[in-house]
Every structure is written in C-alpha cells, then in structure tokens.
C-alpha cells in the first residue's frame, strides 16, 4: 500500500515545476501549459485524498476543476489568438500596452 504522503509529495513537485515554468518562460503558450500542470498536480492530490479518506467529494471537485480548466483553455487560447493577430507575437515581454 502506497502511503498518502507519497502522492502529496508527487503533487507538490509537479505543482512547483508548473510554478517554475510559469515564472521563467515567456512564451505565452508554455505559460498556459504550466497552469495546466499546476491544475493536474492539484487533481492528483484531490483524487489521492478521496481514495485514502474513502470519500467521493474529492473526485467531484476534480470533475469541476476539469470543467473550469476546459473553459479556461478555450478563453485563454482565444485571447492568445486575438493578441497574436494584433501584435504578431506570443512573447509576453512584447505586450506592454497596460503599463499606463
């Protein structure tokens, strides 16, 4: 039987890799994928909790997280397309219109 802590550690490591990617990459698509990595890390720990506490609520929450991730991907990629159409790049350092 694998202890619950192992799953939580795996989830923490994947989440932090996602944080690192989000902080250090400047390609907006890769930053988006880092967010997806973080969401998946949270899903791992929720399903692990759900299994070890013998409660279904964690998995219900995972279903909602996947729903929101799909919505977020659709909206975010639409924004990326609109940005690329206006700026011709997906490099976030070039996007500084909101600086004021």
């Amino acid at each position, binding site marked *: 039987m694998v202890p619950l802590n192992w799953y*939580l550690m795996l989830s923490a490591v994947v989440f*932090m890799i996602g944080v690192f990617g989000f902080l250090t990459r400047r390609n907006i698509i890769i930053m988006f994928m880092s967010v997806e*990595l973080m969401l998946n890390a949270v899903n791992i720990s929720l399903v692990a909790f*759900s299994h070890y*506490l013998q409660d279904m609520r964690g998995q*219900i929450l995972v279903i909602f997280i996947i729903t929101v991730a799909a919505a977020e991907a659709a909206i975010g990629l639409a924004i990326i*397309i609109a940005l690329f159409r206006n700026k011709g790049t997906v490099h976030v350092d070039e996007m500084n219109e909101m600086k004021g």
Partner: protein
Amino acid sequence: MLSELFFGYFAAVIILLSVLVITRRNPVHSVMWMLLFFFHIAGLYLFLNAEFIAAIQIIVYAGAILVLFLFVLLLLNLREELKVKRFIGTWPAGLFVTAALLVIVLSVVKSFVPGPAGKYSIEFIKQETHTKALGKLLYTDYLFPFEIASIVLLVAIIGAIVLAKRKTRSK
C-alpha cells in the same frame, strides 16, 4: 512491493515529463510531452480506483484541451519563437522561489493527519461501481455546482467566439 514499484514508475515519469514540458524550445514538442503526461496521470488515477476520473482525464484533457492547444499552435507563427532564449535572464531567482515553496509544502505534508473515513470504501465502490456512485453524488448533493459548471462552459463558448472573432469594419 509491486504497488510501490508501480507508483515509483508513474511518479518518476510524471516528474520527468513535466520537466520536459516546461523546458522544450518548440511548443509543439511540449504539447506532445504533455499528452504523455496526461496519460500517466490517468494511469495514476486508475491506480487510485478512480476509473471515471481517469476516463475523463483522457477524454477531456488529452482529447479536447490538448487538441485545442495544438490547433492554436498551428495557427500561430512560431518561427521567431524558436530563436529567442528559452528562459528569462533571472531564472535562478525563479528556481530559488520555487525550491523554497517546495520545501515549505513538503515540510507541511509530513504533519498531515487524516480525518475520519467516509462511507465510500473500496468494497462499497466495487459493489456500486465507481461511475454510478460518482453520478449519484453529482446529481443529488452537487446539483447546484453542476448547473454552475454548465454556465461556466456557456460563458467559455460565448467568450471564445467573441474574443477570437475578427473585428468587422462597419463599427
């Protein structure tokens, strides 16, 4: 012993793949590694007796979201993206922050005390089947959040169309 071995394989491959996802220069390669990553996550869910979650992980994440990513990547021009540097100049600062966060989280994980177990034991799920148990809970106790999720998806549909639509001249 065997279960630890399986978990070790999945954990090692998941960590390796997530590192590969964020370090590739070409985003298309990142998407491909991400596909493998999602399949391994689904394997981990099967390992945790969550068949339905594993199925929707593959169907929604690998089947819908990644295909969306791939479509958008092919719409964009990535020629000059391949020439610029992969990471920002101050990436060691990011690494430091991330490592500090990881240490904090791992030190907290050790002191976790599990609460009382619920009624969804493995025997109960085996008898009820996982999808049925999940669906019963989702359509009774969590009906209102379920409706909100449908509104979120509606907003996503409308928002994606409005944002990606080309502006018409007559405005």
